[in-house]
């Protein structure tokens, strides 16, 4: 694939670059990697340019840019991997890295097969990557957001806004003959407002993005001003938040960002490395019920311009739509090349890594709970006393037990079917299969979150997407401070 001629600097390993890596040179390196045996080898070359602009106190206070370049080489022997990387792309340095990775290998040399260039689908074609758009246009966008936030409410005391962008150029070559390139743009805007009134203080945030250029902001409801007003709305609404109740009750999760429930309760536990090792609470449960019959969960790397979307994973495999749970029954796991080999399946294109500094592992892309049959209004009306959660701060799961938590940053009491008072930041805690078996109503209103989420696993961060319709869970533990009946 090729980039439009936008003035974007190309990777030094790209065609015509100072350290061009073509299929023949890639094969030679893989030969070095397998010179002492080993079952397979791959190389991952990456050139990432990142940039950020931060507005605070009405001015664009900091501007930064960074370049990160390197090549990671992996040698596989059984389920053991030797991994080395180099930031220096001189041939001798690459050979040294290949030899270091080969430390793991024992046995006869085996050569890589001839590698040939492969094409892949195109899920985030961007005419002009935002990173090459002249700075003043982006500075004006942040200033506009600042003005919009301050105009939205007189109680706004502080506004912080940021624009983060990157372009990640990849080259992947494998000893079984693949040679793939990709260019992955990313844009993320965020705004936080702090409001103060009568000695009380509260913050609210809104943001979004994806694998898009500046055209992201032209979408309805996604302008910088829209995010500014939304952040202020949340902060003002939560100024009046009261103590949240504590204990088990009905919970309704709003559409979109509540998909992090899926990400934590289901997604991580279905990453096949955990299941290959038998340490997940979902291990050995394929074909068994793990959720209510309303629930169908898929992981889709192919959503147009999605934050979690990828044309190819970091091992050169193409992800599509992987069904994890179908009508409540566990259907499959998320695989990288290694776990797929263990289970005798095709990789699902979920082998991802933070950068050339780390070996890949099974990771989510965009994880969605598909729409159900219920009218969202009807779902709210059905709740006698519970919590309605609209915005979320993040979550975490213990893979072994399946216990997870996720935090609410905008939530309300539901009393007799109506949303009433806002409640303070609380966590919801539950267990994956248990919580999903209690999904008793599911809305028709599937929404995909705006592009803000980043997933951490074993110290590696990757961008992901989530999505879901309105969800009703018949009983979940709400971690408030107000104990009922006391």
């Amino acid at each position, binding site marked *: 694939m090729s980039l439009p001629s936008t003035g974007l*600097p190309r990777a*030094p390993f790209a065609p015509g670059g100072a350290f061009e890596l073509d299929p023949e040179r890639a094969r030679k390196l893989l030969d070095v990697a397998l010179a002492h045996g080993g079952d397979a080898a791959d190389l991952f070359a990456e050139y990432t340019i990142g940039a950020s*602009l931060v507005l605070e106190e009405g*001015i*664009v*206070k*900091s*501007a*930064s*840019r*960074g*370049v*990160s370049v390197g090549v990671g080489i992996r040698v596989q022997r059984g*389920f*053991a991997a030797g991994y*080395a*990387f*180099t*930031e*220096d792309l001189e041939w001798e340095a690459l050979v040294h890295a290949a030899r*270091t990775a080969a*430390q*793991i290998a024992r046995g006869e040399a085996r050569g890589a097969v001839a590698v040939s260039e492969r094409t892949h689908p195109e899920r985030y074609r961007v005419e002009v990557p935002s990173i090459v758009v002249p*700075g003043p246009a982006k*500075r004006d966008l942040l200033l506009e957001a600042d003005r919009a936030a301050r105009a939205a409410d007189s109680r706004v005391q*502080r506004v*912080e806004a940021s624009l983060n962008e990157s372009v990640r150029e990849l080259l992947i070559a494998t000893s079984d003959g693949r040679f793939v390139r990709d260019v992955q743009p990313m844009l993320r805007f965020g705004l936080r407002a*702090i409001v103060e009134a009568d000695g009380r*203080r*509260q913050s609210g945030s809104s943001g979004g993005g994806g694998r898009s250029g500046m055209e992201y902001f032209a979408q309805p409801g996604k302008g910088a001003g829209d995010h500014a007003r939304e952040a202020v709305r949340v902060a003002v609404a939560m100024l009046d938040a009261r103590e949240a109740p*504590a*204990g*088990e009750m009905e919970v309704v999760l709003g559409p979109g960002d509540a998909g992090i429930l899926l990400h934590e309760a289901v997604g991580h536990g279905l990453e096949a490395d955990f299941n290959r*090792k*038998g*340490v*997940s609470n979902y291990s050995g449960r394929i074909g068994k019920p793990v959720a209510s019959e309303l629930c169908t969960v898929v992981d889709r790397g192919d959503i147009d311009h999605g934050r979690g979307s990828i044309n190819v994973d970091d091992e050169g495999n193409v992800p599509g739509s992987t069904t994890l749970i179908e009508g409540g029954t566990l259907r499959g796991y998320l695989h990288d090349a290694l776990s797929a080999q263990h289970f005798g399946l095709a990789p699902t294109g979920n082998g991802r890594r933070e950068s050339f*500094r*780390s070996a890949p592992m099974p990771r989510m892309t965009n994880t969605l709970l598909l729409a159900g049959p219920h009218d969202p209004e009807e779902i709210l009306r059905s709740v006698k006393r519970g919590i309605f959660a609209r915005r979320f*701060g993040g*979550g*975490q799961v*213990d893979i*072994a*037990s399946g*216990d*997870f*938590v996720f935090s609410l*940053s905008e939530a309300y009491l539901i009393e007799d079917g109506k949303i009433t008072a806002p409640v*303070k*930041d609380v*966590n919801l*805690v539950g*267990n994956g299969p248990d919580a999903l078996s209690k999904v008793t109503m599911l809305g028709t209103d599937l929404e995909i979150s705006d592009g803000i989420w980043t997933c951490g696993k074993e110290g590696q961060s990757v961008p992901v997407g989530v999505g879901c319709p309105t969800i009703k869970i018949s009983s979940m533990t*709400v*971690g*408030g*401070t*107000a*104990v009922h009946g006391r």
Partner: protein
Amino acid sequence: MATTQEELLRERADAVLRRLLQGGATDAKVIARAGRDLSVRVRLDEVELVEEAGTFSLAVRAFKGRRAATSSTNDLTPSGLARLVDDALELCDLAQEDPFAGLPDPDDLAKRWEDLELHDAACDGVDAAEAVQRARRAESAARDYDPRINNSEGAAFGRTSGAYYMATSGGFRGGYRGSYASISVSPVASDEGGKNRTASYWSARRALAKLESEEAVGIEAARRTIALLGSKRVPTTTAPVVFDPDAARSLVSAFAGCATGDAVYRRSSFLLDRMGERVASGLVTLVDDPLIPGGPGSRPFDGDGLPARRNVVVENGTLKTWLLDTYGARKLGLRSTGSAGGGVGTGAGLSNFYLAPGTSTHDEILRSTKRGLYVTGMMGFGFNAVTGDFSRGAVGYWIEDGALAFPVAEVTISLNFKELFAAIDAVGNDLDLKGSVASPTIRVAEMTIAGS
């Protein structure tokens, strides 16, 4: 070898500094870092991963008058270095005038410093084979501890060593080397209802010889894992909560983030407007001390080049100072506390931040707790720095009559930080500075525990 690496850092950084000033920067700061890392993971006695690499990076902060910008790279080719310089200079024109931007007063800079025992050559001497042996020993100790340990997420050993050098147009030149070795084990045991239980235990030190033994780490991880078997929820209630050192450190860390000058001028701290006031119980003293020999967060000078110094942030419950870098101090009309973080951005960074140990032993704290929750791990992100509201998932044990009665999971604990720190009624003597934020065992008199 090591001398060469340090010379290379100096050469590169000084050259970039000259080019920034020649290119039109009125002031600049350059940071160079180099490192060598090895990490291995074994699982069920088999090697899973051997990872080895060297790193080298440069980062700059350039000023044109009161406009500032930063750039960074690990591309050390001539074109990569040219780009590093050009990016910073170009971005200065994009940033807007900030009256507080600028390097510190040259009179305040550190001129000389003591050796803080940050680097141990023995760390560098561990090769892949030895690292694998160490990880294997730790995992075996865990698996041999109890037959109910029937699986493993593995054991890891890692060592890193690196060099740091900073040069500024304000006249600062300085660097140091450091090392860090760590070992961790995560055994797994099967529990009822298809659940697995795992608890990790780890040890880390700058000096290799000061790591806990592999066997001790493995046994402790296994002991913690087995103790989780049969975990259950408890009914929603209020009760005293005892935090073990690993759990308590995340409370201390969240508190520290609210005591920095950045959080204060951003009005993003529940401690705002409370300087000089009682913000915690009299048992609570919080210290940021960069000068502890061998401390994981120790540093001889701060990221502005100012001498590092010990700061008592909270003394016997009273808030005494914010942690300030030069920029944050100017914003607040105060003086820097020598707490600038080590990067090219502005902002205070923690060194060794800890809750000072008290006199009670861990056992005395448990025995004097009639009924309550003993927390060994927390999950999730439930802390709002602006309001101090705190709510997180917790695992641990139920305490009955001063002893651990049964393991607890799937509950949350909640209390606003203003009340939580005021309600600390016991502080243990078991402080272990294995990470740069640390706490002994502490007890909070009463919190809300949400369960079934």
